[in-house]
C-alpha cells in the first residue's frame, strides 16, 4: 500500500508506513516541505519553565538546566537538525572530533584513542568548549591545568577565541589538532 504522505510502497499488512511512520490508508495535507530549514535566528531562548527561566543559546532543543523542550514553545520558527556535522578537529592519527552548531565540550574522552595512556592525564575531563555564534566557531579553555593553545599561543583565561579553517589547537601540551570548517 502506498503511503498517503511520503509515497513509500508498504507491504499490505502494515498499519504504519515503514519510512515516515504515518498511518497508512489516509491522505494527508502536505502543508510545507518536511525538511529542516537553516536557522537564522540568533536570539537566545528564555526557558518557559517558571521554575527555571534559564537563558539558553539559540538552537538549543532542550533547556540545558531543566530539560524543558524548547522547540515545543518555538512553534513557527524553523530550526536546524541537531547532529549534522558542520566542522571538525582533525587529530594527527586522522581521528576526528566532529562539531555541529551546538556547544561542544572537548574532553579527555575525545582523545582516548589517540593520546597514549600515560599522557591522557594532561587533558582535563572538561578541557575546552567550542561554541558556534553568528556563523563563527569559538574556542575557550575551561581553566585547565595544562592549557589549550591556539596556533601555539596559550589561550589561558583570555576567553573565547575565534577559530578559522586550518588553525591548530593544542590540548594539554600533548596533542595538536587542526580545525577544518566545512
Amino acid at each position, binding site marked *: 500500500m502506498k503511503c498517503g504522505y511520503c509515497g513509500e510502497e508498504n507491504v499490505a499488512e502494515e498499519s504504519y508506513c515503514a519510512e515516515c511512520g504515518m498511518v497508512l490508508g489516509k491522505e494527508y495535507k502536505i502543508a510545507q516541505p518536511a525538511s529542516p530549514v537553516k536557522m537564522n535566528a540568533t536570539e537566545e531562548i528564555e526557558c518557559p519553565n517558571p521554575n527555571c527561566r*534559564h537563558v539558553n543559546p539559540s538552537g538549543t532543543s532542550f533547556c540545558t538546566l531543566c530539560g524543558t523542550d524548547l522547540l*515545543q514553545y518555538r512553534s513557527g520558527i524553523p530550526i536546524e537538525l541537531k547532529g549534522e556535522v558542520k566542522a571538525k578537529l582533525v587529530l594527527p592519527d586522522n581521528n576526528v572530533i566532529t562539531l555541529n552548531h551546538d556547544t561542544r565540550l572537548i574532553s579527555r574522552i575525545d582523545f582516548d584513542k589517540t593520546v597514549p595512556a600515560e599522557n591522557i592525564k594532561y587533558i582535563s*575531563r572538561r578541557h575546552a568548549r567550542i561554541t558556534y555564534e553568528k556563523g563563527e566557531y569559538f574556542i575557550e579553555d575551561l581553566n585547565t591545568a595544562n592549557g589549550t593553545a591556539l596556533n601555539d599561543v596559550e589561550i589561558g583565561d583570555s576567553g573565547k577565541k575565534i577559530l578559522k579553517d586550518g588553525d591548530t589547537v593544542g590540548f594539554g601540551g600533548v596533542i595538536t589538532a587542526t580545525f577544518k570548517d566545512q
Partner: protein
Amino acid sequence: MGSSFSLKYTLNHDFFLANQWSSTYLAIELLPPGEVKLSEILPSAIYLVIDRSGSMKKQKLDSAKTAAIQLIRQLNPSDYLGLITFSSRVERVALLGRVQSADMEFVEKEINNVKASGGTELYQALLSAFQDMSSFIPPGEKLVKRVIMLSDGQPTDFVRNERYIELARRMREGGVSLITLGIGSSYNEDLLTSLAEYSGGTWKHIASSADIPSIFSDRLEEARTVIKVLPDIQIILTKDASMYEVYKSVPEVYLVKDINKKGNEYTIPLSDILAGEQQILVASLNIPPRPEGICRLAQVQIADEPESKKEIIVTYTSDSNVCNIENNAFPRGIFLSSKTQVLTRLGISGDRNALSEAEKQAETVLRDNSLTREKVVLDATIKAKETIQKSKHGLSDEELKIAKEEMTRIRRSG
C-alpha cells in the same frame, strides 16, 4: 522464557506540532518477572580473578581465599569454575572446567597455598580468563558467564585504558560480563567502572575485607537469577528522527557510549536481565515534521525477542496548547537526575566545571514539583546534592570511592 519480560516506554510529550521539528525524552523500562523458575536457572561459569600482589598481604588475601573456597562449595555440579591469581605474573590455580569433573579438594588446597607478593598485571589476568572462557566452554552452551575480579591496587602493566576497554567490549560480545571488586583506597575505580560498563557488568567498592565472602556469594546468587544474558535494546526510529545523549538510569547510572547506529536503527547494550530487576534507559530525541495525524515514531524491542516489540505512537496536531502540556514528567526527570549524577561523578573526580554544573542542575530539578514527585528522581538528585556538599569539605580516597559508587547507581524501589 522468551515472552516473559515486557518493555514499557514513556515520552514526556505525546502530542507534537504538525509540520515542525520537535524534541522529547524517551524512557524505556524493562520489566522482567519477579523470579526464575527452578527449572530455568541457567548454570553459571564463574571465573575468579584474584589479585595476590604484595599489598594484598594478610587480611585481604586471607579473606579472598576464604571467600573463594566458600563460593566453590556453593557451586552446582553443572556450573563451571576457574580461578586465576595474578601479581607480576598470571597463575591458573584452578583450570576452567565443570565442577562435577574437577577435584575440588585439590583446588581448595591450592587456594590455601596462594601467597601475596609482586605487582598487579591486571590486563594479562583478565585476558587469560576471557581466553579460557572462549576456549574451554563449548560454543552454544547456555551459561551465565562471569569473571569476578578482586584487586586492591593500580595495575602495574602500563596497558592503555583503551586496550582495557577493548577487552571489556570483546568480553561482552563473547557473552562474558566482568564484575570488578575494588578493595582499599588505592585501586583505580575509574578503570574498574569502565571495565564494568563496557562488559555489561558491575563495579563494587568493598569497604572491609571481612565482606568479601558475602559479596562473592551475592554475585553467585545474582548469576542464578539471570533471565537473559547481555541483551541489546533495538530502537528503529522513523525517517529523519534522531536520538542522542542516552543514559542508563536504573540500576546503574552512566552515559551510554557504546551505541551501534546503522541508519535509523540504534542498538544499545544492556546488562544481564535479572529476575525482578528493572532496567531503565533514557534518551533525548529529535522528532521530524509530519502532517496532522497519528505517526509511529519508533519501534523498540529486545534484540532476538520479537515478542517484546513495542510501537511508539504519537499524534501530530496544529493545536499548540496541547503540545505544550507535559503529559508525563518522568522521562525528563530521570534524564536530568542521571545527568546530574554523571556530572557529579566527574565533578568529585576533580572537574570543577562539572561540579558547578551538577550543583546548578540539582537545584533546578529540586525546584520543579513535577520532577520531584518521582521518588527515584528526587532521591537521586538529593544524593547528588549531598555528595557535592560533602566534596566541598574534602573527601578521603576511601570516601571518594564510596561517593562515586553511590553516583553510579539508582534503584527505583527500596
